[in-house]
């Protein structure tokens, strides 16, 4: 191992990290001894793998369980996970670690962020032959999900899942509001007016709010709901470097105006943040909840009676905002081939164990899991699995994707609209102006 700077090599366990710290305390002289400890153990080698991700809450718990299971079943590696703050902080750190050359061995990225990482050499491509050796091939994934990971003909990310924005609803509240169909599921809602009616009816039942949705200071949340409605209106958003952004202003204004109608402090709170919205729904203080599939465990743990479905098609075209958690290899200047091999083994293990990931709400990317009987018995997952057919990733550009500045810029221009004061048209124009500024600049991750 390369221990030229003390303890920059990966320690095996927490204990050896402490030991490493102690070694440093005792002086750099001990560093060579320390570097040997990764390979300690009689005969066989356990490769310590550093695994970064940005999953917390329900997701984090499930991921921790999957990692533990994989570690237990495979003496060849020991993966230790590090959770970083979701969004910009995570991606900034991932990029900085990658250019620094001592990046973690494997990380999870949103597939939508790939255009900002792969072309700039921040990621190392996956070796598809080696993946196949561990039983992970192109045929095992929905084509669109697999293709999202390919940049310039090379595979840079392999998607663990697809996670759309969906609608959860409290079945008790829905029943009392007369909004349940004969099948015990929410009636089909096909127009904005109908949605407002249902939400109002639910508000009358709960006495607090009809709908929970939190977005304050959270560009991602704003963008998810907006983009869902925007795509339902059949609109496109095309972002090409060196050209003006193509945004359908009329559709955008329609979507934003509808959101303003929802956030009237009766149907939904005007200024809810993410945590408040979750708390409100799981405490039965609202009937419906716009949220990502990842909040499924929270809802389940709360014990409230609820079901879920794709966000109703209110504007004609079925569509849902979605993204994928995908495995990537952050760039390392001197990767250890044997260790890399164990990364492949580790990732393949997580794919095969991703029925647990479906338990966390996500729709697994690995088809053998989705097609299993076990998966079809998962409720309410099966009720919203159809959202996978209408997935919409962020428009592709180096600056878009989950937790990107793109969403921050969206928030900067549109939060005032959500809060109710600002004019939707002004908000969206400000956003487009911002996009045009970005598109006019040279792409910093382009080669050459």
């Amino acid at each position, binding site marked *: 191992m390369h221990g*030229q*700077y*003390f*303890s*920059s090599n990966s*320690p095996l366990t*927490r204990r050896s*990290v*402490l030991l*490493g*710290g*102690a070694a*440093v*305390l005792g002086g750099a002289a001990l560093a060579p001894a320390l570097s040997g400890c990764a390979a300690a153990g009689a005969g066989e080698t356990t490769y310590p793998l*550093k695994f970064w991700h940005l*999953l*917390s*809450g*329900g997701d*984090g*718990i499930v*991921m*921790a369980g999957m990692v533990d299971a994989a570690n237990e079943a495979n003496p060849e590696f020991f993966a230790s*996970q*590090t*959770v*970083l*703050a*979701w969004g910009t*902080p995570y991606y900034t*750190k991932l990029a*900085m*670690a990658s*250019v*620094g*050359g*001592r*990046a973690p061995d494997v990380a999870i990225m949103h597939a939508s962020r790939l255009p900002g990482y792969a072309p700039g050499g921040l990621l190392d491509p996956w070796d598809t032959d080696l993946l196949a050796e561990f039983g992970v091939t192109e045929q095992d994934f929905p084509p669109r999900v697999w293709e999202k990971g390919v940049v310039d003909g090379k595979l840079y990310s392999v998607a663990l899942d697809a996670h759309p924005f969906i609608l959860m609803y409290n079945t008790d509240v829905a029943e009392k509001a007369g909004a349940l169909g004969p099948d015990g599921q929410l009636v089909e809602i096909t127009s904005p007016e109908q949605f407002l009616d249902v939400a109002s009816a639910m508000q009358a039942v709960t006495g607090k709010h009809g709908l929970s949705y939190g977005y304050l200071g959270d560009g991602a949340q704003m963008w998810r709901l907006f983009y869902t409605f925007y795509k339902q209106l059949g609109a496109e958003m095309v972002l090409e470097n060196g050209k003006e952004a193509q945004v359908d202003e009329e559709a955008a204004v329609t979507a934003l105006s509808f959101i303003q109608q929802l956030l009237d402090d009766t149907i939904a709170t005007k200024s809810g943040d993410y*945590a408040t919205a979750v*708390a409100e729904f799981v405490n039965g203080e609202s009937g419906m909840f716009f949220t990502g599939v990842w909040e499924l465990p929270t809802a389940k743990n709360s014990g409230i009676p609820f079901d879920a479905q794709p966000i109703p098609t209110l504007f004609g075209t079925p569509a849902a905002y979605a993204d994928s958690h995908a495995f990537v290899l952050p760039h390392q200047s001197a990767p250890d081939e044997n260790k890399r091999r164990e990364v492949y083994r580790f990732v393949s293990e997580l794919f095969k164990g991703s029925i647990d990931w479906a338990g966390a709400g996500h729709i697994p990317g690995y088809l053998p899991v989705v097609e299993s009987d076990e998966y079809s018995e998962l409720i309410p997952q099966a009720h919203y699995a159809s959202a996978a057919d209408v997935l919409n990733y962020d428009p592709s550009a180096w600056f878009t994707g989950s937790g990107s500045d793109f969403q921050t810029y969206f928030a900067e221009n549109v939060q005032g609209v959500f809060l109710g004061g600002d004019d939707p048209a002004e908000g969206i124009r400000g956003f487009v102006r911002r996009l045009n500024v970005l598109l006019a600049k040279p792409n910093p991750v382009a080669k050459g």
Partner: protein
Amino acid sequence: MTTVELPPEARVAESRPQVPHRPGEKRFGAGRVIALIILIVMAVSWLLPFAWALVTSLKTEADAGATPVSWLAPHGYTLEAYANVLAEGNIPIWALNSLLSSTIITILTVATCALAAYAFSRLDFTGRRWLFFVVIASIIIPPQVLIIPLFYEMLAFNMVDTYWGLILPQVVAPPMVFILKKFFDQIPIELEDAARVDGANRLRIFWTIVLPLSRPILSAVSIFVFIGAWNNFLWPFIIINDTSLMTLPVGLQTVKSAYGVQYAQNMAMALLAAAPLIIIFLFFQRQIIKGIATTGFGGQ
């Protein structure tokens, strides 16, 4: 110039407690009662965030996140949050990294700055004036302006994500050179002359005569540098990505719980991270206050 210092021996700690020291003051006139009330209100406001953090950290997560907001804990007070935080294992590693890096930074800074300050004060070498001018002028450079080129430089040195990358750039402290030089200037030169007559060389004089005389200023500078290094955020945050190399402030900000936002644990972590310096402060209140006051104006 932005560096101007206080009368070196600012008598902060040596106050005249309890005794009304302004002439003609009655012990408890109406004015003093009002002043006392204002003081109490201010002190309570200033202690409030600590108290709220402490109470939160002693609650169960359920109570910490419950409405209505209350100082009481229906489920009782517990050390659970602390146990959970410590069981995660990161805090001790970060504390060790903080202690280690801050100590090395302090030693290197004080050593290099003291040597240089002595040379500027006593040794008439060629180029002294312009070099001293450059050093003093550089005080105006905000370290924040250097982050981009410094990171680039660390990439070239292959020092991103290493202790060296963390420590070395923090060792440069021109204001400390200035403060120490001013102090050395005041030491009567006659004290050194005797030793020179005896043929002692400069290093020996510095070590055996100047340094012992400079203990107060050296400890003041050390305290200031150490607190600065211990709490420094921007540079450590930029240069360290590897969680096992992070310092307390950086780790606390960067690494999140896999189990979501947990208010009691957050406050427990914050208090654990705050504890070392606060405990040291309780023991060395006088020295620290004096150190800060004497060095403060130079240290920005």
